[in-house]
């Protein structure tokens, strides 16, 4: 068990080491750069440094954000960032410790990609070694937990989170404080906290990055939540596709237990809480709360009708708090600094910052964090650097299979829950995919419908059979086999499936169709009447008889 003084001591030790003037070479070892063999690079750098007698510390750190330029290496002090570094570049990186860096390595952090961002959730990402709890502590980690457990009552913690205006970052945008309050007030002595790390939206990797780059932040957030709602057991439900995140979480949990941040008598109080990891097995629908609970219980991940809500009757029919990774990751800074500090950022209804995975046909792809309220144009054209040479912007897709495609004329839309909904998309978990004029929008709709159809659990009829019919229709349209009647049926199905499906997956499955019909109806009509795909993506079978 650890005291505040010892916490200070750990932080001090880390800082002293850093202050000794030794350079630090930080190599990104999050999944993106790791896939480009940054672990080999890290080894090469360490080896070269040793053999040439250069005194420096080579560390693996979490995601630095600009994944398209990976593998990334940063040198501290000096905040110099090297991009696309190969093992044979080791000498060049080490040279920069002696002399100012070569011209081609101008400080990328002064570019719009970094300057336009504001980091809360990602404040430690790319700066600390995710496999070393001391480094998290050195950045002020676990202070919030001490503060909450020793100086605040559970009700005060709920109040602080409520006053921050934080809303669920998994996509729904339900006020986090309200949810916590409901679970806190729910009857029962046994309660659970679940962290939803089943990041299922294709094109989204925010949660993965947070878990891989700063896992303790999530554990701390969950533990504070458990204290606030009165839970003693927590689960993190992680996708099986994220083995590295699982590995780092396992290590983080072990370290947190060792220092008494998990287990019994946390921070010297009577509070008890522990966390278990549950690995998903590949089912998008398990991102839905009740399906996720069924999956933790070892069952098929089929959703249940709500009410009762998990806050009243969730895991094993006990009151259960479910938040996603990014939501929990926001909690420590809110408790540490105050809800008022957090709510000063963002728009009147959407507070704080949001992490996005910016990908697709845009120059700078990677992970970004911006204050709520920036426009999509700023994200795509300033931070993202606009389109690659010769490409023309067509739409930006947000919200994954539950979201929509936002066209050029709506690019000045501000990023907040309500504004994105108004233009026919949703905030979602944070996937943001830029689409250019080589993509057919009907085909994009077909892609998402295929996704929903095969991810439908099959329990309720509208989602199971409705998405299959919608997919068939979209398939006929992209093949030039559809008639006017098909379009009418498609529109009817959009309405019916969203109004009658049992869970969020079905209710939002028509969204990609609805939004592309809203902004790109001409493309649908051209496929149907002229048997023509303006993007040149669809192969038309003109001879097939169309339905009357």
């Amino acid at each position, binding site marked *: 068990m650890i005291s505040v003084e010892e916490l200070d001591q750990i932080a001090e030790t880390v800082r002293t080491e850093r202050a000794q003037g030794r350079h630090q070479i930080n190599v990104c070892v999050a*999944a*993106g750069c790791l*896939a*480009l063999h940054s672990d080999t690079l890290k080894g090469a750098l360490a080896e070269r440094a040793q053999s040439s007698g250069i005194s420096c510390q080579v560390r693996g750190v979490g995601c630095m954000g600009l*994944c*398209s330029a*990976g593998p990334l290496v940063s040198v501290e002090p000096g905040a110099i960032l090297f991009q696309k570094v190969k093992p044979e570049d080791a000498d060049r990186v080490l040279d920069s410790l002696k002399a100012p860096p070569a011209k081609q390595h101008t400080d990328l952090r002064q570019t719009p990609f970094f300057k336009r961002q504001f980091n809360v959730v990602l404040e430690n990402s790319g700066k600390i070694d995710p496999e070393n709890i001391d480094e998290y502590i050195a950045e002020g980690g676990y202070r919030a937990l001490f503060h909450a457990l020793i100086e605040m009552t559970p009700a005060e913690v709920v109040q602080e989170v409520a006053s921050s205006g934080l809303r669920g970052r998994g996509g729904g945008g339900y006020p986090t404080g309200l949810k916590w309050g409901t679970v806190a007030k729910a009857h029962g002595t046994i309660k659970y906290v679940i962290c939803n790390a089943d*990041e*299922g*939206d*294709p*094109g*989204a*990797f925010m949660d*993965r*990055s947070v878990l891989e780059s700063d896992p303790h932040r999530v554990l701390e957030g969950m533990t504070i939540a458990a204290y606030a709602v009165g839970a003693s057991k927590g689960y993190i439900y992680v996708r*099986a*596709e*994220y083995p590295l995140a699982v590995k780092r979480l396992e290590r983080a949990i072990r370290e947190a237990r060792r220092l008494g941040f998990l287990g019994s008598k946390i921070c010297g109080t009577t509070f008890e809480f522990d966390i278990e990891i*549950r*690995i*998903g*097995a*590949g*089912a*998008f629908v398990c991102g839905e709360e009740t399906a996720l609970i069924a*999956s*933790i*219980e*070892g*069952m*098929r*991940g089929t959703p249940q009708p709500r009410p009762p809500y998990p806050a009243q009757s969730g895991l094993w029919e006990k009151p259960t708090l479910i938040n996603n990774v990014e939501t929990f990751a926001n909690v420590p800074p809110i408790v540490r600094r105050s809800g008022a500090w957090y709510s000063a950022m963002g728009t009147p209804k959407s507070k704080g910052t949001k992490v996005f*995975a910016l*990908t*697709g*046909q845009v120059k700078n*792809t*990677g992970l970004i964090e911006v204050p709520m309220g920036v426009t999509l144009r700023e994200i795509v054209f300033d931070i993202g650097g606009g389109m690659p040479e010769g490409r023309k912007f067509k739409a930006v*897709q947000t919200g*994954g299979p539950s979201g929509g495609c936002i066209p050029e004329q709506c690019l000045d839309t501000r990023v907040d829950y309500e504004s994105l909904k108004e233009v026919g998309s949703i905030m979602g978990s944070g*996937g943001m*995919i830029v*689409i250019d004029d080589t*993509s057919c929008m009907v085909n*994009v709709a077909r*892609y*998402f419908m295929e*996704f929903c159809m095969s*991810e439908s*659990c099959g329990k309720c009829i509208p989602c199971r059979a409705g998405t299959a019919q919608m997919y068939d229709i979209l398939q006929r349209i992209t093949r030039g086999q559809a008639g006017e009647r098909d379009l009418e049926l498609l529109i009817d199905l959009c309405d019916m499936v969203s109004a009658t499906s049992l869970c969020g997956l079905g209710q939002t499955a028509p969204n990609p169709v609805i939004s592309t019909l809203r902004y790109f109806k001409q493309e649908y009509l051209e496929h149907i009447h002229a048997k023509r795909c303006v993007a040149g993506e669809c192969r038309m079978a003109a001879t097939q008889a169309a339905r009357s």
Partner: protein
Amino acid sequence: MQAPSRKPALPSEDKRWRIVNGTMRRHGYARDALIETLHTVQQSFGYLDKQSLKFVAASLHVPLSRAYGVATFYHFFTLKPPGKHACLVCLGTACYIKGAAALVAQAEKTLGIECGETTPDLKASLLTARCLGSCSLAPLVVYDGELIGNEDAVHLQGRLEGWMGS
């Protein structure tokens, strides 16, 4: 109330069954350990066959049909033995926008099988993923666990032909 539970005997001398049993023991043979246990079976044996499903179901007191229902609900589990090599094409949105469909088509052509299948000589399996979360490297293919970003059809074909020739 459950009667004192009898545990079925391990199906064979194979040491891997002890690993499977270890997972179940760690979870106190609770029914909710089904998915965790199936993960262990798949890690140990490469796939879930009927014998292992029967063993796990009996050990955890889960009805056979429920065990089978769970095993087939989740994409991650496979009931067929996998090939010696595995090619996994990511079909996430970013990969799709950047041409993953053409990669799938090339892989299907080269291996002569469809997604989700294994070649008859068990040399290679062709799989797809919903999203691997490395979208900046789109399109993405994983060859036997090795992640290759910005993949193109020519390189993919070469890689797969290498497997089939070996």
